[in-house]
């Protein structure tokens, strides 16, 4: 397969996953904003949301006022914001268009349709669209595309590159969301265990569509340790870091078999998986959750680079 084709498939799914995360963040901010203003005047949820995307500065420069409508514009509609839902959907569709012949017609139809629907949403009167509508649409659309991929794509190298895109992006996004909650969102450590704290945990779980799953797995009692365990180390949860690397490993191994050649990327993914598989949540907190997550985000970027160097440049022999 052409390296550029593989790169387009890899980035197509990364953008799809990213659009989903942006929508979830928007939803999380929206729910947090419903929280009564009792926590000592801290209403900086929107700012936290933007910080997690590393986009606070860009937002301030362009919009200034940190009000819901502006954030909604910025995170959903703004094509100048590269991680807005609209930007991501457009970028995913553009990547797909370039490699159309590597996609089944169902997958292309689903992606193309999402783009057409997005254009229809953009044309609507803004008072007619609510944040939950936008989030729902995004989650439904990305699920439809992923479903089409699972149902129809041949299980060959291209399929694995799509999965690698999903896995790498999802690991990055989960780590960032968790980091936002723990490090950015809560005004100070004094609030840990407070009502505000648990409200925010709930929203985070909701944003990850993990609220009921968590309840089922941990009996409902909210605690930082358990939630961190759930989002990092629990292989039953599909967005957990561990799950992402199980997926990444599976598909890198498939590529190695497919091509009859193992590369440093497989090595790197295996090490990452081994570390997470053996880690206990106490170790994570000993290291410091923020420090651990920062390290994970960097290693994840390293894995993405490795996949790029080994497969997407076409020069590695």
């Amino acid at each position, binding site marked *: *397969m052409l390296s*550029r084709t593989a790169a387009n498939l890899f980035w197509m799914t990364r953008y799809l996953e990213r659009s989903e995360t942006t929508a979830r963040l928007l939803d999380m901010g929206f729910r947090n904003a419903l929280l009564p203003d009792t926590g000592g005047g801290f209403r900086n949820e929107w700012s936290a949301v933007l910080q997690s995307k590393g986009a606070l500065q860009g937002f301030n420069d362009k919009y200034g006022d940190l009000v819901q409508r502006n954030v909604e514009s910025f995170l959903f509609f703004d094509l100048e914001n590269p991680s807005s839902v609209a930007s991501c959907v457009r970028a995913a569709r553009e990547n797909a268009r370039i490699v159309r012949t590597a996609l089944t017609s169902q997958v292309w139809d689903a992606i193309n349709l999402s783009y057409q629907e997005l254009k229809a949403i953009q044309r609507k009167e803004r008072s007619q669209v609510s944040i939950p509508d936008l989030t729902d649409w995004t989650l439904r659309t990305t699920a439809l595309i992923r479903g089409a991929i699972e149902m129809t794509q041949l299980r060959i190298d291209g399929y694995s590159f799509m999965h690698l895109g999903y896995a790498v992006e999802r690991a990055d996004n989960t780590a960032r969301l968790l980091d936002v909650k723990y490090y950015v969102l809560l005004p100070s450590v004094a609030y840990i265990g407070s009502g505000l704290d648990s409200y925010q945990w709930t929203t985070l779980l909701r944003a990850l569509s993990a609220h009921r799953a968590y309840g089922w797995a941990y009996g409902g009692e909210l605690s930082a340790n358990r939630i961190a365990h759930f989002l990092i180390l629990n292989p039953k949860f599909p967005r957990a870091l561990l799950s992402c690397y199980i997926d990444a490993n599976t598909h890198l191994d498939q590529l190695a078999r497919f*091509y009859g050649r193992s590369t440093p990327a497989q090595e790197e993914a295996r090490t990452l998986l081994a570390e997470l598989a053996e880690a206990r949540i106490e170790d994570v907190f000993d290291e410091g959750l923020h420090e651990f997550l920062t390290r994970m985000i960097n290693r994840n970027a390293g894995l993405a680079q490795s996949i790029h160097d080994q497969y997407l440049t*076409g020069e590695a022999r």
Partner: protein
Amino acid sequence: MTDAYFNEMYDNGNLRTPYRMLESWYQNMPAEFRAGKQAEAEDLFRRYGITFAVYGEGGDPDRLIPFDMFPRVFTAAEWRRLERGIKQRARALNAFLSDVYERGEIIRAGRIPADLVYRNDAYEIAVAGFRPPLGVFSHIVGIDLVRTGADQFYVLEDNCRTPSGVSYMLENREVMMRMFPHLFQENRVAPVDGYARLLKRTLASVAPEKCDRAPNVVLLTPGHFNSAYYEHSFLADLMGIELVEGQDLFVEGDFCWMRTTEGPKKVDVIYRRIDDAFLDPLCFRPDSALGVPGLMNVYRSGGVTICSAPGAGVADDKAIYTYVPEMVRFYLGEEPLLQNVPTWQCARSDDLKYVQEHLSELVVKEVHGSGGYGMLVGPKSDRATIEAFSARLAENPSNYIAQPTLALSTCPTFVEAGIAPRHVDLRPYCLVGRDVDLVPGALTRVALTEGSLVVNSSQGGGVKDTWVIAEE
């Protein structure tokens, strides 16, 4: 009374044989059914993503070219004659190319002026003396034809570089078969879907001698922003070959390589859809980012084949066009089966005199011009325009050629009120490799505006499915 234009369906009111089956078809078609089918066709085209400008006309890449459902039909006998003429012309053009890049016999024989060829910008010094595999330079020859009578066809121009539009030929048929399957059950329409297989076979047949396995053939596109990108990806997909951009290829040693997820893979044949000037910044335009640096060296040392060969454009130049019948006689020892449009070379004083005296009847074009720029359409110009043009012509006669205005044939076309005759042209795609092949079909362009002779899609032109009815 006879019609001013040859009507391909009703010759002076009499239904012509190839259209026999279609008369009841359209007569029995209720208006609302037709509207429904038309909408269905557009939907299909949009779904397939066929939105591109034919012949590099530019414009909105997401624009659909209007599709007219009324097919244009040829009998097998008509097509056989055309086919022989087209293949003959394609062979002669290739013989000319391999001659002028090697010995230049036709020039030594005094049949074509040396400067017309060698001073032509399309003549590539870089490939002089180089013989591509099988001596073939132009592997896909697009020949634009118009019809003026039952047995009268004229060649408007040749295209030896990278003629586009063939995806319309294939998709128009695809859409017609989906919408009107019974038409194909009742009529013995010769299939065109073998084109992709033939094209791939043609390309593989010109792999370099150095290639000792099944050749790796790729299609080189300028990229997904190009207006013909859809056609590129469509053809690559049908042939089962990789669609590559310049950045996907690189040169190392004596070969050209493709970047794949398994590492570099050798490329043997490049069907390029980018112009000569952009192929290799180390040989042509140094600022080109679309091409592959070093490619021309690999090509000229026999490591890869480029289709069509750089420099093939010298055969389809407007000034060279006049000499194509001469090429047929010189290289093939045959009389040309397809006629050129009579052309006056204003560089010749006799011709110039005639042209000056008949400006109001003629079309006068610049030799190297394109896109209708600097052109005079005599019958449609007022006196002042003609006089102004006449002065310009007198100043630099060798820059102009003149042709009569042709009475393009018409074909029935769906209009608001039913059907009506509209002018059409024809572009078949002839393949030249180890064999010379032509599928029984072509792209028909139709001028949708009443009375218009302009078939360009940018000026209200559309396309039609083109049928050849197989022998009983």
